[in-house]
Each structure stands twice: as C-alpha cells, then as structure tokens.
C-alpha cells in the first residue's frame, strides 16, 4: 500500500516537472511524460501513451480557456485544421493500439518517439535562430473557408489583419501532427505551430493559441480509441493529469524568472538523451 502511494507520488512529481517544462517552452508535457512513465516507472508504452493523451486533453483545455479571454483563438482556422488532426489522431491511435502490439511494436514506437524527439530538437533549434512569420501567396481554399483573420492588439502594436495561405499544405501537416499525437500520446503542437506560422502565415501568438485549442479535440480522437480498446490505466491517469495541470500553472508563473534560451538548450539535451535511450531500447541494446 505504501509502495502504491509512493509510485503515485513519483508519477505526480514527474508530471509536474513535465508540465512546467512544457509550458515554459511552449510544448506540451507529452514528450517528457511518455518516456518518463516507460523508463522510470516501467509502464508499458501503449498504456503510457493512452494516459498521456488524457493529460494532454486537460492541459489543452486549461491553456485554450486562458487564450480565449485574450481574443487569440482563430476558431475557423482551428476547425478547418481540426478535421485533419482528428482523422490523423484516429489513425495514429489505431496503429499504436492494434498494429504495434507486442515487443516488435514497442520497438517501432521507441523509434517513432526518437524521431519525434529529434524533429522537436530541430524545430527548437531553428526557433532559437529566428521566429519569422512568412507571407504566403494568395490561396483560393483559404478564401473559400474565410481563414484570414486579425491578431488582437499587443502592447503598442494595434490589431493587425493577416492573410492565410497554403491551406492544402497546412491540412497535410495537420494530419501528420494528428498522427504523431495519436501514435505517441503527445499534443502535436510542435508540428502544428510551425505549420501555421511558417507555412500558412499565421502570427505566432494566434498560432500557439489556436494550436492549444485544436490539441484538445485531437487528443480526444486518439484517447477515445485507447479508452474503447481498454488501454487506459485510471490510477495512473489521475497523477499524470493533475500533475501536468499543476506543472503548467507553475510554468506560467516561472515564465518571468527563467531564461527561455537557456531552458531551450537544456531541453534539447534532455530530448536528445531520451531519444538515444529509446533508440537503444528499441534495438534491444540497453536495459535502461
């Protein structure tokens, strides 16, 4: 009984750390939660992914509700891309829950996780270099679905209208982000935000806010597959979800004192280490 309470406390602390780090860096906690549950607590990777998705729903709802009051949510764009992210998440969760069963499947998942960690490192690194929004060419699909919008005033800057483009590419990338979410139990914001800013021409703040809104429905599409399949461990969901929420709250408070640049560099190292361990595990080299 004591060991149960200790295990739950350990998972709670892991989730608080993951949530705090996630909110400081603008990523969800999933990238830390899943390897943490697998490597530190011996949870099967399928179960870890399912539990992480439920906590992703909670963090998304928390942050999207804060963005809503600041007028940053671009609802039409969110729903437009959400159809692609939710279909992707359904597909990704299906692959994890039904195709990648057993030891061989876990190896593939470790590999996929390592790939996502590596691409997150790449995106974070690029982000350290610059953070420009591109101006996309005119796009009929974006016109048809009235995707253009206005960013609310920010400090001295007045409200600015922006035009959205490359809607098809955006949809394709949203599908990929959804697949990653359902497959690996992450929010997928690391792909959605660059797709909106770098490809479609959405200002970063609107993109982050809209991404956080979309992540909730994306994660539900994946979570429902796992729930219906019987992959959710309720006793682990509680500390993971509550811890991530508390960590996110803590992270927003820490925002003023921590240097984002140092944190990003530190996080890149943590992710590289996690990716390496997952690859070694997948290859059967390491018992870490």
């Amino acid at each position, binding site marked *: *009984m004591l060991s149960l309470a200790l295990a739950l406390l350990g998972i709670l602390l892991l989730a608080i750390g993951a949530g705090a780090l996630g909110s400081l860096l603008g990523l969800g906690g999933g990238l830390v939660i899943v390897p943490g549950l697998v490597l530190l607590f011996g*949870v099967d990777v399928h179960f870890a992914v399912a539990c992480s998705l439920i906590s992703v729903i909670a963090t998304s709802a928390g942050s999207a509700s804060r963005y809503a009051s600041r007028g940053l949510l671009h609802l039409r764009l969110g729903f437009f891309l959400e159809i692609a992210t939710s279909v992707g998440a359904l597909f990704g969760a299906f692959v994890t829950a039904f195709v990648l069963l057993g030891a061989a499947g876990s190896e593939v998942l470790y590999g996929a996780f390592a790939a996502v960690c590596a691409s997150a490192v790449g995106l974070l690194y690029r982000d350290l270099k610059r953070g420009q929004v591109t101006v996309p060419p005119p796009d009929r699909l974006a016109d048809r679905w009235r995707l253009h919008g206005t960013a609310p005033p920010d400090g001295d800057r007045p409200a600015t209208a922006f035009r959205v483009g490359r809607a098809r590419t955006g949809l394709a990338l949203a599908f990929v982000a959804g697949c990653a979410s359902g497959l690996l139990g992450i929010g997928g914001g690391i792909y959605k935000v660059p797709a909106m800013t770098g490809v479609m021409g959405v200002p970063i703040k609107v993109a982050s806010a809209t991404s956080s809104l979309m992540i909730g429905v994306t994660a539900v599409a994946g979570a429902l597959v796992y729930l219906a399949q019987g992959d959710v461990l309720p*006793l682990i969901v509680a500390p993971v979800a*509550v811890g991530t929420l508390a960590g996110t709250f803590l992270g927003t408070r820490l925002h003023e004192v921590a240097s984002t640049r140092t944190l990003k560099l530190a996080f890149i190292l943590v992710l590289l280490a996690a990716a390496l361990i997952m690859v070694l595990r997948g290859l059967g080299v390491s018992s870490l």
Partner: protein
Amino acid sequence: MTGAHDGAAPPVPSADIDRLAGQLGRILRYGVSLGALLLTVGGLLVALQASPSDLQRPLDLLDLRPWLGMSPGIELLLAGIAVLVGTPIARVCASVLAFHQARESDYAALVSAVLLVLVASVVVGLLL
C-alpha cells in the same frame, strides 16, 4: 474581430463567432476544473486504499463492474476521466450549434464532421 481586410479578402462575419470563443473558453475552464477536482479527490482516496496491483489495471469500458466499489474514491476518479474526455466534445457540440445559428452552414457541416470522427474513434476502438 472587425480588422480592416485588404483588397479581395471577403468580409468575415464575426460577432457571433467572437461570442463563441468566450463561450468555448468557459466550457473548457469549467470542464477542466471539475475534472481535475474529481481526479485529485478520487486519486487521493484511492492512493490510500487500493492495492499496488491495481496501478497497472486497465479500464474496460464495456465492463465497469470490477471497478465500481473497488475502493472509495474510484467512482470519482472514473467520473474525472469522463469529464475531461467529455469537455472538448462538449465544445465541439456547442460550436456546431453556434455556427448553425450564425448561418455559416459550411462550418456547421465541417464541425459536425469533426464530431463524426470522434464517434468513429469509439467505434474503431470497440470493434477492432
């Protein structure tokens, strides 16, 4: 949002949709608060009572009987999960209604399609 749109950009009807953003924000805030509260109280009660083997016991949606009455607080914990998963679904439903009322039938259909994808998720999880 009534910002100046340049050139050929079609006017974006938005008053209703701006209201919707606030409404969705409230749904999400209440949902996540209630879900977190249920999970915290339920989790604490379960942590004191359950046995370590329950930690890795998966939830079977079609047969909840072994869970109910397993330990005090477990019902709260399961309700917490249901509320968290139900929160984004509730905001999708509210959006279908809002787009319908705003006479944006294309978006009402698009958002309904998102709802269908969620139904498909349950069907896929149960049938396969």
